[in-house]
């Protein structure tokens, strides 16, 4: 009986030490913002784009977090479109990329371009995550089901079910004008995208 008690206490004690050690090591890997999961350094890119500049952009219809659906084709003849695929909600870089675009609305507006944010997360997750970003001016779309179907069409679905961090600029005829399948660990530079928007808008103006 005494041995059983001693064994129980030893197990209890070891468990406490383990929990303590876990708490300490987890706290060291907490990223910049509370609530953000740090997946560590990932392979920069896994896919070479299946599409190239000059190709027709595959059409799609996806549910938006604001309700209803959004189709790429609804902007045909009206607006240039930037598709911003981010790998996953509640992860570093992704959690800042769209807030960055959110304060750059005038850059999109002056170049007659709409931004569509796309992630493979489901609507409730995207809703909760984007609430932390303030009020976004652009539609956020869920490519959750069939899982990553649009990312797959664009050739950027990773083997673990998340998408690459990728930007596609599509003109008013639905033709892809710029592709950036970016290092998943890094933020695409805003000026590079702004330059591409301006370049395309200048072509439109001079037509």
């Amino acid at each position, binding site marked *: 009986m005494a041995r059983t*008690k*001693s064994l129980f*206490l*030893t197990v*209890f*004690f070891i468990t*406490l*030490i383990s*929990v*303590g050690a876990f*708490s*300490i090591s987890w*706290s*060291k890997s*907490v*990223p*910049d*913002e509370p609530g953000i999961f740090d997946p560590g350094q990932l392979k920069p890119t896994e896919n070479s784009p299946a599409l190239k500049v000059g190709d027709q952009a595959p059409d799609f219809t996806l549910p938006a977090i604001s309700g209803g659906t959004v189709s790429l084709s609804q902007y045909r003849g009206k607006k240039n479109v930037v598709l911003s695929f981010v790998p996953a909600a509640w992860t570093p870089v992704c*959690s*800042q*990329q769209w*807030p*960055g675009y*959110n*304060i*750059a609305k005038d*850059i999109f507006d002056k170049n007659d371009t709409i931004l569509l944010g796309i992630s493979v997360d489901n609507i409730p997750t995207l809703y909760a995550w984007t609430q*932390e*970003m*303030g009020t976004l001016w652009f539609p956020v779309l869920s490519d959750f089901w069939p899982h990553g179907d649009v990312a797959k069409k664009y050739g950027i679905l990773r083997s673990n079910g998340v998408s690459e961090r990728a930007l596609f600029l599509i003109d008013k005829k639905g033709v892809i004008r710029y592709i950036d399948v970016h290092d998943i660990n890094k*933020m695409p*530079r*805003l*000026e590079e995208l*702004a330059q591409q928007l301006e370049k395309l808008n200048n072509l439109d103006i001079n037509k």
Partner: protein
Amino acid sequence: MQKRNLYFALAVILMFFTPVQVESSQELTVNADTLKNLKFDAPENLVDKKYLGLPDGRNFHLGQVRSNYLIIELFSMYCPVCQRGAGTVNQVYDLIQNTQAIRDNFKVVGIGVGNTPYEVSVFKKKFEVGFPLIADDNFIVQKALSSDIRTPTFVVAKLSGKNQLEIVLTRVGEIKDAGEFIRTLENTLGSH
């Protein structure tokens, strides 16, 4: 029986110690010697350059700023908390500019951590920031910090000429009350 008491005592001690260790791992210290030697691109805007009292040249050290104290905001254009708090930081700057005793002693500069000059200019324009913002696209300011940068972070340094710099205050996280922050600055002024 004695052994069991010992186990319980150790267990209770561990339960109290664990959160303390977690908390302490998130503390921030700033190495003044490293910070003062970091070289940044000088602001191109002449008004900003004049405000900081910088000599001619493309680069500068923070210790070259002509002021008794320098408030450094580490921010990112991409950080939603920095965006949300930009108005309050502007209020802090305005209060400083409108209070002579503080204005004569404190200057403010923002460092856009991981941001390019273009990205910093987007933030400055969007939030009508009155004080200079400089870019740190290579994260060099990280070299002076003991832990990963969490934006926004505020560092107040005492400058004593000849590129000498002493850290007098660090604050990680958003400023929620500009007046309270100003009172903290006034206390800092009183105690140094």
